[in-house]
Every structure is written in structure tokens, then in C-alpha cells.
């Protein structure tokens, strides 16, 4: 379904978190209540975009970068790799993100999920051939995503305005700051040698291309269907981000009323 926000993924493509998928944590009612409460801090819609003028300009720049560089690179990548190879590479890159996820699991007090993160890393790095495979998932330890933006949300920090970052794409003030902090949770960040620098840039490039490739058609479809591509992406990002912060849980109470406003009465 071009519907829904594969877009969010596109946002995540640029923020380097694209490979993460979500999984609900435990069924503990307290966990559920907390997850949903923290997710409430991200409004969606035009009201949450006081910096729209700046954001639209940045969006246009990023879009040009996407059209002229990322899409051709993603298409080339698709041409020279097999689907199974691409899946292996996605797994490998996701495994490299373990430190960031682990740190944020712990900062959020999600010790069970931190255990999952560690378990996945150990299993996938060993019997998963260095992370190319994902035997952990087959063992029931599903992948999940965390980042410092989500941690801040758990700590009660409001999302702040919607913000389109240069190159990194859709975000919010809080999540953009969080993305910066996440850089420092990466061990390679602290190693200032030429090989480490080469590794960081190579990994970033691989992350972008690997994450963009499966979104070539979905994003093209959304562009075709949208009357306002910018607003479409914004909504997809904010909606899916809200769910991400709530650790994959769904809060139906937050939905706006569709059918019960007074002004709808004359429709019946």
C-alpha cells in the first residue's frame, strides 16, 4: 500500500535508522500506558510546522539530492546485487547499529529490550555470520529500534516543531538533537584514525543506499499520488514516529474524530 508511510522509512533512510523495525515490548499494562503516554508528545498535521518556510526549502534541496544522487545510486545498487545479498547487507548494517540501540534501551529503562538487543547482537554476530543473517529473529528475538529522540520522548521532552534537516530529512527539533547525540553513542565516532574515518563514511554511504533501494517505487508512487508531496511526507513521518516512540503500540484514542463532529451531522 503506497498508503502509508514507507515514507517514514524514507525519513529514517536519511537518519540512518532505516533498518530498524519495531516490536511491541511486553504486555505489562504499566509499560503500555507509559509507551502510549510518551508517544503523545508528537502532534501531527500542519499545526506542528511553524517553520514550514524553512522546511520546504530544505525539503526541496534534499529532494534534489535524492533525485540526482540517491535514486541513481540505489538503482545501481539494485542492479549489481541480488535480493538475498541486499537482505544480508541490511542485516549486517542493522547489527552495526546495536550500540546506539542498546544505549537508548538502557537510558529508557527498557532492560528487557536491552537484553533482546544484546542477545540479537551476540547471536547474529556469531551464528548469523557476522550479522549477515538474522537467526535471532527466527529464535523469537525481534528487531526493534531506539534512538535518543525516543529516549528524550520517554523522558518527557516534547517533540518541538517539525524540522527538515539538511541531508538527514524529516525530523523534529527533539529528534534532530537526538540524532546528533546518537552519533556519539557509536564507538567508531570516538576513534580518530584514518581507517575509522573511512569506515564511518563507508558505513554511512552503505546505510543510505541500502535503505533507499527498497523505497524507490514506494516513494515514487507517493510523489505521484500527492497533491503536496512535502505535506504528505510530513504527515507520514509524524504519524509513524509517534507509533515508533510508543514502541509499536497503537493508541486509537489519539485519532481525530472523523464522523462525530457536529458539522458532519448534515451528512446523514
Amino acid at each position, binding site marked *: *500500500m*503506497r*498508503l*502509508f*508511510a*514507507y515514507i*517514514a*522509512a524514507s525519513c*529514517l533512510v536519511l537518519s540512518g*535508522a*532505516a533498518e*530498524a*523495525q*519495531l*516490536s*511491541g515490548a511486553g504486555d505489562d499494562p504499566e509499560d*503500555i500506558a507509559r509507551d*502510549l503516554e510518551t508517544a503523545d508528545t508528537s502532534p501531527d*498535521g*500542519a499545526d506542528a510546522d511553524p517553520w*514550514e518556510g524553512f522546511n520546504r526549502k530544505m525539503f526541496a534541496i534534499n529532494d534534489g539530492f535524492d533525485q540526482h544522487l540517491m535514486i541513481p545510486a540505489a538503482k545501481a545498487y539494485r542492479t549489481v546485487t541480488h535480493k538475498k545479498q541486499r537482505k544480508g547487507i541490511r542485516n549486517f548494517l542493522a547489527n552495526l547499529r546495536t550500540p546506539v540501540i542498546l544505549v537508548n534501551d538502557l537510558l529508557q529503562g527498557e532492560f528487557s529490550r536491552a537484553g533482546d538487543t544484546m542477545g540479537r547482537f551476540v547471536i547474529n554476530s556469531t551464528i548469523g555470520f557476522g550479522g549477515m543473517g538474522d537467526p535471532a*529473529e*527466527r529464535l523469537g528475538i525481534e528487531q526493534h*529500534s531506539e534512538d535518543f529522540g525516543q529516549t528524550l520522548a520517554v523522558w518527557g521532552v516534547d517533540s518541538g516543531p517539525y524540522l527538515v534537516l539538511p541531508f538527514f530529512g524529516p525530523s523534529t527539533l527533539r529528534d534532530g538533537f537526538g540524532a546528533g547525540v546518537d552519533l556519539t553513542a557509536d564507538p567508531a565516532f570516538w576513534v580518530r584514525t584514518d581507517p575509522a574515518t573511512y569506515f564511518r563514511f563507508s558505513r554511512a554511504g552503505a546505510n543510505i543506499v541500502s535503505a533507499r533501494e*527498497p*523505497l524507490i*517505487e*514506494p516513494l515514487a*508512487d507517493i510523489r505521484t*499520488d*500527492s*497533491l*503536496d508531496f*512535502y*505535506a*504528505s511526507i*510530513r*504527515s*507520514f513521518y509524524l*504519524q*509513524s514516529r*509517534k*507509533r*515508533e516512540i510508543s514502541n*509499536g*503500540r*497503537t*493508541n*486509537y*484514542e489519539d*485519532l*481525530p*474524530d*472523523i*464522523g*462525530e463532529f457536529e*458539522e*458532519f451531522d448534515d*451528512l*446523514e
Partner: protein
Amino acid sequence: MRSLARRSVFRLAAAGAAAFCFATQPAAADQAVEDYVQGILDEAAPILAGADHQTMLDNIEALVDEYVDMRRIGRFVLGQYARRMSEEQEAEYYPLFHRYAKKIYRNTLSDYAGESLVVTGSVDRSERDIIVNSKIKNPEPGSSYANTVIHWRVYRSRDGDLSIVDAGADNVWLAIEQRSQFTSIIANNGGGEKGVDALIAEIKTRLEG
């Protein structure tokens, strides 16, 4: 067909939202509404299995016409501007929106070609506003998208009639996304009736394109 469907499933998962869907509200499931949605999905299955693409699209449109309350959605996506339209604008907007939204629904549903969906449960936001969840029946073995939840928002009128008023996946909703676009276009073109004129022009352009 299958590749399209797989692609669409991947899109959903790629959204970073593949997950279990927990019914977080205590409201009891609404069996009648679940049956209503399952009936639509059963009706859709042979259509989505159709070999001829154009026939499938035509049949999906017929299905959308029958079950989706486009006028209610059309009103919703205007946000606060719904009350600021002139009668002439309303007369022009709603038929245009109907055509535009039908196309979006058609494109969206056609991505499920070759698949069939099964209802997994429901949550009552109120007696008249019910979310029905579904998932792909018999996903490919090992698919990590098997847990993707596809939502159908059902409205029950005062008379008890049911209709679909939104669709979503993993808590990302189509009408909410459309509202973001529509209100943005109106606001960026002066708001009020002037902005609505711009929106109408935009929809016309898109439909003609």
C-alpha cells in the same frame, strides 16, 4: 501481481512499523462491524486475484464506491476549512474529491493484488467509530511483514448503517495524511475560500493529468 503485492507489503514494513498491534483500549470487540469488514475483504479477494489489471482497477473502484463514505472523508480532510466553503465550492469540491480519493484508494488496494486479508479484531473508539484490524492471510513463510496490521475505520450512522471512513497500516492513516496535504494547500494559498479555490484547482489538475 504477486511482486506488486510483495512490494506493497514491503512498503508497509519499511515504514518502520511492523509490529504487533495491541488493542490498548478496553472496549469490547464489535462482532457486527468485524463481520462487515470481513465481508468487504472477502468480496475484494477475487477482485484482487483478477488477472486483468484494468478490470481489477475498475472492480476496486466499484467496491470503493459501495463501501467508502467519500463525502464524510472529504469533509474531514478539509479540517477547519470545511465550514468556510461557499455552496458553489462545495458543489464543485465533493465530486472532485470523490474522484481523486477513489483513485488513491484504487491505487492503494491494487497493491494488494493476489493477496487476501483477514480480520484479526476490532477496537471501539465509540459506539459509532470502530477500528477493525486485519492482516494478510497466509503471508509467505518467514516474511517479517506478517505482523503488519492493516486498519479499517468504520463509521456507524445513527440509522446503524456502516461505512468505511479511513484506512491505515500500523497506525499511519490515509485520511490524516490527506488532511495534512489539503489544509496545507489551502493555508498556503491565502486560506478561506481563496485557498479552497486553489485546492480545487490542484485536484482538477491532478485528475486531468
